[in-house]
């Protein structure tokens, strides 16, 4: 099958229609247990609550950005979506079909979902040439070796690496940017519909990063892809993503269209995160850090709203009542008592500035 047919095939594979989200994530939960302390009845079962019951959707053809501090569960979420880690509970519904059902066995799901990692070097086999690395996936899924290599060469061309020069090279003979192009080509080799990009451009130099971002946009157009883009670089997320999801301590605190979210963030955490971005104007330097200290320990997260310990707008009620993740403004969901009717949050104390945001 030639690559030009790809888009057609993708439309053919579309099961639920354009309005059916590509992936629905429901109540996804993953705790990593720690070595238990004490004996017998005193024995405490401690666990890192990496991902604590998150719900979201990835729409067809969109780029969904995921942001948050390290340890907030971004990467665990990515690994759960890719099923590299098994969830404790929760389900994934890919284009209307539940993962693991007869309609969508894991093997078939993995073919349609691929991932590109941050470290371009450690994610390639050092003892395989790059054409073999790219062709490996398709051969596992039953494509003949000859055809798989042919496709690998097509893909190398698509990601801007001349096959005649690069196909036979080993990973160490390439620069970081070139290696990340190879990883992208490898992800495309199985003709996936969803690509998870976990900090895929973070390790690259700025000028190379720009080249790879351009490439990602071209490929998305050409192959009709959907991206989940995880990054700590908020500028890049704003530029690339259609919608943005903000995570804090294993929970989703806000989801909304990128422009609206960057312009007027609802959740106090999103507001602080955006204010932490360095300015590029030396005459308007940041005078005070928007957030003090580090995120709390995910082994024993704070009661009520998990952000209340660092939140500027916290009230007494925030320490005891956990907010519900709800639609506060059409198209934007947020988990904050401030926007929740009858939550017991004293709205009278909200500074005027924030009211206009809502």
């Amino acid at each position, binding site marked *: 099958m030639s690559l030009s047919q790809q888009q057609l095939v993708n439309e053919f594979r579309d099961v639920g229609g354009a309005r059916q989200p590509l992936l629905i994530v429901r109540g996804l939960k993953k705790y990593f247990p720690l070595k238990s302390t004490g004996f017998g009845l005193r024995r405490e079962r401690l666990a890192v609550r990496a991902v604590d019951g998150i719900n979201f959707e990835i729409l067809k053809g969109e780029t969904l950005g995921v942001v948050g501090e390290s340890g907030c569960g971004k990467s665990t979420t990515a690994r759960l979506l890719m099923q590299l880690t098994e969830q404790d509970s929760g389900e994934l519904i890919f284009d209307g079909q539940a993962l693991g059902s007869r309609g969508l066995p894991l093997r078939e799901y993995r073919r349609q979902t691929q991932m590109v990692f941050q470290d371009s070097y450690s994610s390639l086999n050092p003892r395989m040439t790059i054409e073999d690395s790219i062709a490996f996936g398709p051969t596992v899924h039953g494509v003949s070796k000859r055809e798989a290599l042919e496709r690998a060469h097509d893909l190398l061309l698509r990601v801007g690496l001349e096959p005649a020069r690069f196909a036979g090279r080993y990973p160490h003979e390439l620069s970081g940017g070139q290696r990340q192009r190879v990883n992208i080509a490898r992800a495309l080799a199985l003709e996936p519909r969803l690509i998870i990009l976990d900090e895929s451009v973070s390790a690259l130099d700025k000028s190379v990063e720009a080249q790879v971002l351009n490439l990602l946009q071209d490929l998305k157009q050409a192959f009709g892809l959907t991206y989940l883009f995880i990054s700590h670089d908020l500028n890049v997320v704003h530029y690339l993503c259609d919608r943005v999801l903000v995570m804090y301590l294993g929970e989703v605190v806000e989801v909304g269209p990128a422009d609206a979210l960057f312009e007027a963030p609802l959740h106090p955490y999103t507001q602080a995160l955006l204010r932490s971005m*360095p300015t590029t104007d030396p005459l308007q330097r940041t005078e005070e850090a928007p957030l003090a200290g580090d995120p709390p320990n995910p082994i024993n997260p704070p009661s009520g709203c998990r952000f209340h310990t660092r939140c500027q707008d916290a009230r007494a009620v925030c320490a005891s009542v956990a907010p519900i993740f709800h639609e506060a403004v059409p198209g934007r969901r947020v988990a904050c008592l401030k926007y929740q009717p009858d939550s017991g949050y004293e709205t009278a104390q909200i500074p005027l500035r924030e009211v206009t945001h809502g």
Partner: protein
Amino acid sequence: MGEANSTIRLRDLQVEFHQPGKRIQAVNGVDLEVGEGEVVALIGESGSGKSVTLRAMMRLHPDRATRYGGSLEVAGQDVLGMGAKQLALLRGKTIAMIFQEPLLALDPVYTLGQQITETIRRHEPVSRAEARARALQLFERVRIPSPDRRLDTYPHEMSGGMRQRAMIALALACRPQVLLADEPTTALDATVQIQILLLLRELQRELGLSIVFVTHDIGAAAEVADRMAVMYAGRIVEQGPAAVLLTRPRHPYTRALLKSRAEGAMQKGQRLETIGGAPPDLSKLPTGCAFAERCAHAADACRQTPPPNTRVGPGHEARCWRLDEIAVTDISRCTL
């Protein structure tokens, strides 16, 4: 610049690494002065020589495989001519350094308190208790919560932001005049990064430290630096006051670098402006301007002789043959 009270003075500094079969010219004639209490940011992509220049200031490169050229003075002392003993006195006492990854830079088998008191007692004749009291003060200074308890913890027990604070405390243990920072916030989250940047700015103001700050993040540099120097292929291609360099850069490389980051440059749906090609191989540097091959303004002259350092404004210098032909435009305004 050219003032008598500069703490660091590099004149035509060259650093060459010898490897079997080849010589890597990592730094090729860097002129840089850092005044007392001044923060200078060295910006550039990987392989531009910014970290090599920084490490040369403490002579941290292995002596056997490194050849230095030019001159390098720190606080009036000639660092390149120093013997091992003098170097040991210089490091930590006059000039100290913080690194990108504190977990690798701190010793995992000693507590932070032990590491700081050891440093203090290595350089000053004080008792253990006195050194410990000073370590406690330092921890308070860099705002580590419950400092007394934290002195007895090991590096792995702390979070990334706290470790970076502890490393800053260690670097300041012997009250150095110069602090070198090698990508100190790259490994940190945005929310913690801004805390560390503000801390560095505060320390510089209160202790009168000179800081040389290496980063590839122009945003981080803009938050702390008084002056900026942009490096490419082992040379400083442009340097000047931060506000001038960020808004009216003259060198084509600086302009390309800033354009990709300037506000409004990342318009949704539009392609990003990129710099084509890759930096030159440092073992086979071109004879002319090292950036010529990737430069949109390059002419024949650029490929023959390296451009001289040209003064383009107060304290603002650039190395480019075609400065006159490239119009001065305000980047931040033209892209908005």
